[in-house]
């Protein structure tokens, strides 16, 4: 969405409010047009998506291997949603996703062991990663986007080196094995099948938060701050605060994904985290599309299930990913969620000729 759209929207909604008042007093008036975002039925759609999510394991799950794939898809979806908040809402590209993921995993395991259970670990992981993300953003707030991306790559690598050397906390390459099993109201979620529903719940909460933001006036402020920071400041907004908050929320979601990954596995080590995670998350978000809240979810599902479909050509998967990123960047900037728009434009062009 461009700024002019956002401005139009702001304008439109104010005017429609006045019209609504006028029509109340005068008894009649022109029909009121809601801003475009209210025309979409986001809440029913979210409910539908989650309902479909509840049924999916019946079709695709069953044995531990396929349940594991489903869990992986959900963790990736949460991670990608976190990146989407940083990049799509906050406007800041970050390479530190893999480090936030690792930090979330380690902090969560530690927190669960010391403060009683999975939930405190999850909350602690989110708080810590939000703090790291916020601090990174604050320290490098003056940098141009590209240099900020380089800075996040350096911060991510530094965190990785810290985790490698701090073996008393992380176990280094030997890994962590005593990991608390999540439980809800005393109900142990020991199997992948049960963990799936826990993750679906967490993803649902995060998606609900995202939808709530998209439908709120804060989204207009955020778009203005992201795309035209100095102008937004003259309009009385606080661009740095808004983008900082988006970045912190995104980092916290990445940390939550790390925490969920950690507690769904009986063992993990430093080998699980590498900068390649950042690239595959970028691929997920690009593939799913930057224009839709569900882009990261679609992208995560595709990226996790693609190697399954291409089982015979597994060794070409990285090459394929890279080619796919290029193809998307060059030809389909909107990703899967944007294909509808591109197809619509092609049809229009064909008609006009």
């Amino acid at each position, binding site marked *: 969405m461009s700024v002019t759209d956002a401005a139009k929207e702001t304008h439109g909604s104010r005017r429609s409010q006045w019209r609504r008042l006028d029509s109340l007093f005068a008894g009649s008036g022109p029909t009121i047009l809601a801003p475009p975002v209210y025309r979409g039925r986001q809440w029913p759609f979210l409910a539908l998506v989650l309902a479909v999510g509840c049924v999916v394991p019946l079709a695709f799950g069953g044995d531990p291997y396929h349940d594991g794939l489903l869990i992986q898809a959900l963790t990736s979806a949460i991670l990608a949603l976190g990146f989407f908040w940083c990049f799509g809402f906050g406007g800041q*590209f970050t390479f530190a996703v893999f480090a936030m993921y690792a930090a979330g995993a380690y902090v969560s395991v530690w927190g669960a062991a010391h403060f009683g259970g999975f939930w405190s670990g999850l909350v602690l992981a989110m708080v810590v990663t939000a703090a790291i993300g916020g601090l990174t953003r604050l*320290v*490098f707030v*003056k*940098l141009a*986007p*590209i*240099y900020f*991306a*380089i*800075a996040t*790559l*350096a*911060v991510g*690598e*530094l965190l990785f*080196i810290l985790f490698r*050397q701090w073996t008393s906390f992380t176990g280094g390459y030997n890994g962590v094995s005593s990991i608390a099993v999540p439980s809800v109201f005393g109900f142990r979620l020991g199997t992948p099948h049960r963990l799936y529903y826990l993750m679906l719940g967490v993803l649902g909460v995060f998606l609900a938060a995202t939808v709530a933001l998209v439908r709120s006036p804060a989204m207009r402020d955020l778009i203005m701050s992201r795309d035209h920071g100095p102008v937004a400041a003259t309009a009385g907004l606080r661009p740095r605060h808004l983008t900082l908050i988006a970045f912190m929320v995104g980092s916290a979601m990445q940390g939550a994904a790390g925490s969920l990954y950690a507690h769904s596995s009986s063992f993990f080590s430093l080998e699980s985290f590498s*900068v390649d995670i950042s*690239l595959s998350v*970028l691929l997920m978000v*690009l593939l799913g599309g930057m224009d839709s809240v569900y882009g990261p979810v679609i992208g995560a599902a595709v990226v996790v299930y693609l190697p399954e479909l291409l089982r015979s050509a597994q*060794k*070409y998967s*990285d*090459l394929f*990913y*890279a*080619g796919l*990123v*290029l193809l998307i*960047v*060059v030809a389909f*900037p909107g990703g899967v969620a944007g294909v509808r728009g591109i197809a619509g434009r092609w049809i229009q062009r064909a008609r006009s000729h």
Partner: protein
Amino acid sequence: MHLFIPILMSGLTQGSVYALIALGIVLLQNATGVINFAQGDLMTLGAYVGFWWIVQRGGGQVLMYLVMLIALFAAGVVLERVGYAPLRRRPPLVIVISTFALGLAIRSALILWQGTGPRNLPSPFGIRTVSVLGAAVPEQSVLTIGITIVVGAVLFVFFQRSAPGRQVRALAADRETAILQGIRVKRLSPLVFGLSSALAGLAGVLVGPELGVSPGLGFGLLLSAFAAVILGGERLGGVALSAVLVAVAQALATAYVSPNFSDAYPFLILVLVLAVRPQGLVRMVTGVRY
């Protein structure tokens, strides 16, 4: 003190390699405005081409440099055609994403070609050493430093004396004015992409005998080169100087502070410089002169 000279020499060697990568990055950035995240993987490609020519084909060392330079120049031109030309008018971040993807493509293609295992690229001098101020220094180090100095001098002459060099400098100084003056950016950019990836390949061939050749070789060094680029304030001379500074600081800190964090020091320098002086240190000096 008896350790100081070897540490300094290894720092200088490493610095030469950083400088070659960083010069490629800055050259490209000045001419096209692109920050190339595939630079590290181009360097790996160079090392593998060298390995292929010497070990698998049994070719000669001197001819290897020629083959490698031609191959990498061609790779750079392909990179420009695929990853930059279609995206010229898009935001810089999109081009960064595309170079990042191309880097991954190169890395995975190399794994398909040569496997993931580390390879050993023989040095033209074997493991012979020379004595520098009483310290034994591998001849490969001397070669690395020497070639870097020669390349630096050639680049300096190229930028001062030749027409394409002057055009690149004009683009760096003021892109829009340069284009208004009729500089053909579209013709210049394949040349600069080729040149910069040839520099990366040279770095790969020079560092290969010391570090061993593996698919992750270049990406690990890329961030250190970025440290040099940012510290040097995006000027060729400043970047070469700060590449050496970064590497010497890294070597000294590894020896005297802690060897465990050896790979962290360049990143630490990068983070500190970006946080404190985003415009680089060298620009501070030139700022006084104006």
